[in-house]
């Protein structure tokens, strides 16, 4: 394995080197860096041309400039990167760091969401192959896949930002809105749940009532201005999550796992009740991390000591519960601070940028501010990338479901739920590992259009600007980061393969 990795690394380095030379040649030949000055009628034009020629060393042949760049870039190996300066005299190293940070903040959440939602939809539509839900998912997936980003962004800005902010001044639902929304949501849900006509009807009716009730409640308490979860709903949520986790893992009959999960739930509830006040009053990132970590440690210990022979299952189950509990707790804290944020920011959903400039608020205010800025770009990026995950998961899941060992599992009498989650799902993830790895590498490269439309100056923008100004240094800085990421991620994918499918490492 080590030899394999070393060989892969060696080849990758050579490819990176050749690629850098090629990209440099392409960039310097893609236009004239003095173009804007040549058209200028400015009296100091000659002066400007002369200065830019000096700054960008345009009087030196391109290969010498390339070697200068290569020399600086190779210092990265000893941790002293020098990627040169851009046309405005700024350090490319710091530009790249800034851009990469901005890009990661923008795309990581969207990608995680896209994977989670896409895989879930893919599994469900594979299990319910050729159902109405399957067709609907496939149809929507293709619609979103082929959606032009800039157009979707303009629509979202109009409805989810401008119109939503207008509505938020006096957030009320009309009875018609409540009825129509509830009916549509209920229809989608019954399609996903499946079953015979009677069961579907019951699901539909029940969920319609629940949705309508929730919307009526939100409307009555102006929830969108003063939202909260509060401790009672937190408790209900954690208990519900515990039940769900149990049913997804060992089932209710395994006493040991049940006890571990129950202990985790009790500690999570008790712990959160104790620290909630502190987190509202004087929050900080270390404190939050500490609380989260404490929860996870408790979950791990509970699983480890109460798990007995189901130790592994117990640890996983309580771990998952702890994560869910932490998520609900964070949501509760954020929602409880929403009305405070609204006082400072009467139009909370922005159409552009990554933070509100000149904004002073507490810890939660800034956190909410970051999230509201992430909202629209994340929705756009998620919508357009769900499709491929859904389709890949569906195909791979169907493939696995038709395998002999699934038929064997079914014939042994294992419940369908277990067959799907335990026997089919993990095996169907193997081909997906490659796609996820490539996507993560692609992530660093940024989402050029999304960045432009939402005013984020990330990696895509760095590359685009560099190319437009025929400025090779930012382009090469971009290449260095994305190229390395691609090589690295490919290797991770190979290793993940071995982990997911033990046959490969043998």
């Amino acid at each position, binding site marked *: 394995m080590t030899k394999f990795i070393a060989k892969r690394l060696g080849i990758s380095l050579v490819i990176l080197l050749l690629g850098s030379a090629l990209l440099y040649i392409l960039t310097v030949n893609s236009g*004239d860096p003095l173009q804007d000055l*040549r*058209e*200028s*009628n*400015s*009296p*100091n*034009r*000659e*002066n*400007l041309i*002369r*200065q*830019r020629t*000096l*700054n960008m060393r345009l009087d030196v042949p391109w290969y010498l400039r390339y070697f200068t760049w290569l020399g600086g870039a190779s210092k990265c190996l000893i941790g002293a990167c020098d990627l040169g300066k851009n*046309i*405005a*005299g*700024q*350090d490319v190293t*710091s*530009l790249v760091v*800034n851009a990469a940070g*901005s890009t990661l903040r923008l795309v990581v959440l969207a990608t995680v969401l896209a994977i989670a939602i896409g895989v879930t939809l893919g599994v469900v539509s594979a299990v319910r192959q050729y159902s109405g839900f399957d067709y609907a998912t496939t149809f929507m997936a293709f619609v979103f896949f082929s959606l032009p980003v800039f157009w979707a962004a*303009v629509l979202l*800005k*109009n409805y989810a*930002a*401008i119109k939503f*902010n207008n509505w938020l001044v006096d957030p009320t639902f009309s009875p018609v809105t409540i009825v129509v929304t509830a009916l549509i949501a209920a229809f989608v849900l019954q399609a996903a749940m499946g079953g015979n006509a009677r069961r579907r009807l019951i699901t539909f009716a029940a969920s319609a009532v629940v949705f309508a009730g929730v919307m009526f409640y939100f409307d009555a308490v102006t929830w969108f201005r003063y939202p909260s979860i509060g401790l009672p709903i937190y408790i209900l949520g954690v208990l519900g999550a515990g039940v769900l986790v149990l049913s997804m893992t060992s089932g209710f009959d395994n006493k040991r796992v049940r006890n571990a999960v129950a202990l985790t739930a009790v500690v999570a509830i008790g712990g959160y009740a104790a620290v909630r006040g502190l987190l509202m009053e004087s929050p900080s990132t270390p404190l939050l991390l500490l609380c989260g970590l404490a929860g996870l440690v408790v979950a791990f210990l509970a699983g480890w000591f109460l798990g007995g022979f189901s130790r592994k299952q117990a640890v996983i189950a309580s771990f998952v519960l702890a994560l869910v509990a932490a998520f609900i707790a964070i949501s509760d804290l954020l929602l409880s601070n929403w009305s405070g944020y609204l006082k400072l920011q009467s*139009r909370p*959903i*922005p*159409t*552009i*940028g*990554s*933070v509100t*400039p*000149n904004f002073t608020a507490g810890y939660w205010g800034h956190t909410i501010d970051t999230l509201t800025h992430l909202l629209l770009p994340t929705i756009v990026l998620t919508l357009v990338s769900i499709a491929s995950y859904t389709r890949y998961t569906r195909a791979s899941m169907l493939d696995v479901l038709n395998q002999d060992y699934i038929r064997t599992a079914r014939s042994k009498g294992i419940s369908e739920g277990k067959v799907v989650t335990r026997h089919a799902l993990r095996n169907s993830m193997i081909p997906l590992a490659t796609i996820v790895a490539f996507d993560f590498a692609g992530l660093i490269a940024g989402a050029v259009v999304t960045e*432009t*439309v*939402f*005013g*984020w*100056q*990330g990696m895509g923008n760095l590359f685009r600007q560099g190319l437009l100004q025929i400025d090779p240094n930012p382009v090469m800085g971009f290449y260095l980061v994305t190229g390395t990421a691609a090589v690295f991620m490919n290797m991770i994918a190979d290793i993940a393969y071995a982990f997911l499918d033990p046959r490969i490492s043998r």
Partner: protein
Amino acid sequence: MKFRSKGAAVLGLALSSALMLGACTSGQDPETTPEPGTSDSATMQTSESAPTETGGTTGCLQDVGITETTDGQVSFTAGPGNWSGYNSVTSATYSTYNSVIANQMFSGFVYFGTDGTICEDKDFGSLEVVSEDPLQVKYTISDAAVWSDGTPVTINDFLLDYTAQNPEWLVPGYANGKDEKAEPLFDHVSNSFAADAPEGPEGEVGAKEFTVTFANKNPDYKLIVTAPLPAHVAAKQSGLEPDALAKAILDRDAETVKKVAKFWNTGWAYNPGELPDLAQTPSSGRYILKEGGWQADTALTLVANDKYWGKPAGMKNMIFRFIDDAQMAQALQNGDVQVISPQATVDTVAQLKNIGESVKVDTNQTLTWEHIDFNFRDTNEFSDAKGGLALREAFALCVPRQSIVDSLIKPINPDAVVMNARERFPFQDDYADVVKASYDGRYDAVDIEAAKAKIAESGVATPVNVRIGYRAGNQRRAETVAAIQASCKDAGFNVTDNSSADFFEKDLVNGDYEVALFAWAGSGQIASGQNIYSTGLPQNYGEYSNKDVDAAWKTLAGSLDKTVQEEQVKVIEKLLWDTLYGLPIYAHPGVVAYDSRVENVRPTSGQDGVSWNGSQWVVK
């Protein structure tokens, strides 16, 4: 093609209008003083003279009654470009985006009014011509003028500004262009101070007044001395005492001065988001950098300068956001930004107008003007050697200027008109006067029959092939050419669209065109048109030559008397019409949109952009 010898080489683009100076000082008939704070563009553009405390005409800053700074903020976007430095006149940091921000942080003796008028900033100081031959100007800085760190603004700052333009004693042969290989020490985008006033400011170290002697009698002398950077900071950062630096400059001690170059060139430029110690970036304007106010990819926040000695800034904070043109309208609608000036296209204007009452939209005309120029090279059909004046007249008769303006410009700015002058803009007060004296309206309407007759008179066989050259990628110009094509076809011209990406580098310079279509951007200079219309000068691409025009420009460029300048402009315009240098078509439209709660937004035709009076904006 060195462009250093002649004065007027100030930051800014080329063509100017001699009339602008006139507009500044012709305050004789105070009729209707506009309501303070009205931002009706029509009021802006008709320059009724209304003397105010600031001493200028309506084009200059008006007193809008701000007595104290309002708590709160106003945010503006000039476009997507990030801010990159406090010193915005190095070649690396010189951009529109940096300049609009620098405008809020530095004061100088003059600034541009809304119609291109050169206005004096009386708060900052005053200037006075003490001798006309040689031209000698005395500058007096207000006693109250201080940098925000308390250091007075003095001759020291202007001395450094002059030195930063690499004068003869520092870099021999650079400013006067005698040595092509001379390497500048300071990376300053301009060299006009050092070239036009070789001896620089003269006075005592640390004095509030100084004298500048100009090499030529340059009517654009007001634009030579620009807002300075703080010399005391540059000195301290380079390990010198502020007074020692000023003394070294006055003593022509090049060795000492060289120590400052490194900091001046790079010390005031920053990596994204990394503001320096704010002691290095004091302000002489109404706003100053704010601690932690730079979010690299999002915005730069300025805070009101409480040490500013004149009328205070309108809002406590002014935010410059970096937003792409295409995203501006929705950002404005959502309140993410309050004032925008996107590129004026039909779509943008329609989108902005559809937003409704919460947003006000102003369209106006800018100091950039579109025109077609003939090629006078002897091998060309339109040259005097071939078709001559008659053929040029024939072409002028078939160019549908009115319908071009109607179809391409009026949808953006309903007030747009066909432009009938080159040195004056339709929104300037003496435009009508100049046009009346120089042009009788003979090319106002298309007259195909007359054009045919003129072609016959010229003796050139039809169809006459006419290549119209312009830079590719401009839809509006493509449509202009199509309109000319359709109209001139009947007269006997076979017009072809000869656009190319390198039109300015190749076709225009080599003369591979019959008619060139492009725009000049006005800079408020009086004599820069000389470079376009005089024989053998660098911007006279069509190689037009007329002795009378040359003589008139010479008189104009050597006179400080506005009546003389005015007279010569009329002479020049008339000659250019009679010999048909080319045809002006229209002034480019501009658009500004802002949240209706923001008061005192005044669109300007000049290059400073709408934020020129940003320190007067107040959000209700």
